[in-house]
């Protein structure tokens, strides 16, 4: 493994690669800084740009964006009490009070160091575990892959949605949309209605940008339209003195950093659990273990460290199921799968075998990106703060134009721009009604894989679908699927917890 990693560094350590990692991280932080825009928007918008890059540079650039956006989101959380995305919500609890005490840069530095540490720790786990996991997954046949796919859908639907049925409904819609286009097995047309743009299926770009980026930006724009004052809150100027983190302060945070990195990595390895959950689990664990839990929420550095290390640790670990099984852990990993596919690499167990050099090159790029993240993030703090002064309406409106370009550039098709707006409308509706965008997107992305393996299973075993319960490796996955259907569908922990909370509120 060490040898392969060294070879990976040899492939990855080029000027072009480093340059795009720096650019990726800077863009990630900038997009993360803008509340309501976020890293997912940056990722969806910039995937088309990577068409023109070598695969390793493209993936390194996109990973740079993912890493940068996580720490970038902490900046508005600290300065404005307005987290860049939901994963930084817990950062506001101690970050904003610390900023109010005149130490915003101290809080931002701690957030950056913790974020880089969380990233690094989970990257190491990814490098150690990806190959053994992929080796196990190589033994899987179509029945096992179908069973794993069904488990992934159930887990993601159960954990991303408040009700399992809503999550599965979104997934089913995603799978249905993925069947539009030419049938890969027989080459016949499926629901293309004679539209040439649909022969290759619904464009991943149009769907991703419309559903994830454009709908988010439009939702923010509508909020700004209704409440223009809220869109123009700006950070207060602060005194540059007293912003340094002392060794004693950092040392006190070390156990928290390790604990949160472990929590975030574990959460990241399981599909669907999400970055926000990791952040809150990290924060909760730090508070429980603290000798002075009452100080949390008053501007404690440990609170920031706990949240940022945990949410950043999800990034690397999320790639373990992505690389080993081709199943994304969250939406960022799903988008990376899209990028891999664009560059002719099919994520899954064969990836390590067929593109080993590329994968280790990506691992090396991830480690390099952590060092770059530290330097760029630290040096750029004044710029990130300054970028918060750009009025939100200007940023959001410009992002809409970027969305149009993001779809038009690779396709040169007005149809795809129209399709992007259709998915933006769908995305807006889903956002406002609590339907999971993650489920729909992952359904769309995994639909072809599931179809392929399900069809192979049916052909191999004479249309006997019950083979999923008789094959020894598929059986545990199916039993787990049934368990999670019961758990999320009939004994929903979130439902029970919320009902208890609601009843408690009423009795007060």
């Amino acid at each position: 493994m060490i040898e392969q990693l060294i070879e990976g560094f040899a492939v990855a350590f080029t000027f072009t690669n480093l340059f795009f990692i720096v650019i990726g991280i800077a863009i990630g932080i900038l997009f993360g800084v803008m509340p309501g825009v976020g890293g997912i928007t940056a990722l969806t918008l910039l995937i088309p740009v990577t068409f023109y890059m070598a695969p390793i540079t493209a993936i390194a650039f996109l990973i740079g964006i993912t890493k940068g956006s996580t720490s970038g989101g902490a900046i508005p959380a600290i300065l404005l009490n307005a987290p860049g995305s939901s994963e930084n919500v817990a950062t506001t609890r101690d970050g904003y009070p610390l900023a109010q005490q005149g130490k915003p840069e101290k809080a931002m530095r701690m957030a950056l160091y913790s974020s880089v540490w969380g990233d690094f720790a989970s990257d190491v786990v990814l490098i150690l575990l990806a190959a053994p996991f992929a080796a196990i997954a190589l033994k899987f046949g179509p029945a096992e892959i179908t069973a794993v796919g069904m488990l992934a859908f159930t887990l993601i639907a159960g954990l991303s949605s408040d009700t399992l049925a809503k999550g599965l409904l979104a997934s089913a819609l995603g799978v249905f949309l993925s069947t539009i286009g030419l049938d890969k097995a027989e080459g016949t047309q499926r629901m293309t209605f004679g539209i040439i743009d649909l022969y290759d299926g619904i464009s991943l770009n149009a769907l991703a940008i419309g559903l994830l980026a454009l709908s988010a930006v439009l939702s923010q724009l509508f909020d700004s339209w209704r409440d223009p004052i809220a869109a123009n809150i700006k950070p207060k100027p602060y005194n540059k003195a007293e912003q340094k983190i002392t060794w004693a302060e950092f040392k006190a945070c070390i156990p928290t950093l390790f604990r949160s990195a472990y929590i975030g990595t574990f959460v990241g390895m399981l599909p669907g659990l999400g970055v926000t959950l990791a952040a809150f689990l990290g924060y909760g664990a730090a508070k429980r273990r603290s000798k002075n839990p009452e100080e949390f929420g008053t501007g404690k550095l440990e609170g920031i460290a706990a949240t940022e290390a945990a949410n950043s640790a999800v990034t690397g670990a999320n790639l373990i199921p992505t690389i080993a099984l081709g199943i994304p852990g969250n939406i960022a990993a799903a988008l990376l799968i899209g990028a891999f596919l664009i560059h002719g690499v099919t994520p899954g167990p064969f990836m390590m075998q067929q593109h080993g050099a590329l994968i280790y090159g990506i691992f090396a790029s991830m480690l390099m990106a952590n060092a770059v993240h530290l330097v760029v993030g630290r040096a750029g703090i004044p710029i990130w703060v300054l970028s918060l002064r750009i009025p939100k309406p200007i940023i959001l409106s410009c992002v809409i134009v970027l969305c149009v370009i993001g779809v038009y550039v690779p396709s040169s098709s007005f149809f795809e721009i129209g399709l992007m707006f259709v998915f933006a409308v769908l995305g807006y509706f889903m956002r406002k009604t609590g339907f999971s965008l993650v489920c729909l997107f992952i359904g769309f992305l995994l639909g072809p894989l599931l179809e392929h393996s399900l069809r192979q299973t049916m052909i191999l075993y004479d249309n006997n679908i019950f083979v999923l319960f008789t094959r020894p490796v598929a059986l545990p996955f199916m039993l787990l699927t049934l368990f999670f259907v019961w758990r999320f569908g009939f004994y929903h922990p979130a439902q029970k917890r919320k009902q208890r909370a609601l009843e408690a509120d009423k009795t007060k």
Partner: protein
Amino acid sequence: MNNNISAAGSPTTANLYSGVIVALLGVIALFWLIPEFVTGANDTSKNLTPGFMPRVAAWCMILFGVSVALAAARVMFGKEKAIVEESEENEELSYGRTEVINTLVLVILSAIYVSALSYLGFIIPSTILLVFLIYLTGYRNKFVLVLVAISVPISLELLLWHILKVPLPQFPLINF
């Protein structure tokens, strides 16, 4: 968050309508779209036709659509307590009058913009769109507004043309 769980625009009402709509879409797909628009879907000589997976997905849409609608109906008729849903995107969950108006505005604006792109090229509709959106969302510095609205589309067009060699839609009169 919309606390009145069965009021118009609440997640429960939205669940009821969206469950019914998706289930109906599944029915339409199963009985019209797939038989009519999937080549070879009705080929009885094969076990697995190209219509296999679309049919599986359509049945799932019906099954889960009905489940979501039934659960919402049970809440509305007081047979079950509502789950206080939270948005994974940190949004306020409500699809009432305001959101319907927003959706209509979005549909109309996007239809106009996409049509304008094909007739007027990239720069003119994008400039107008930027002026409209920035002004509408409360920004009133006219100089900056006009500067951004003009410079962003022009610089994007120049950047794409000179670096990526990708032409954006052009104003047709330029060719005369």
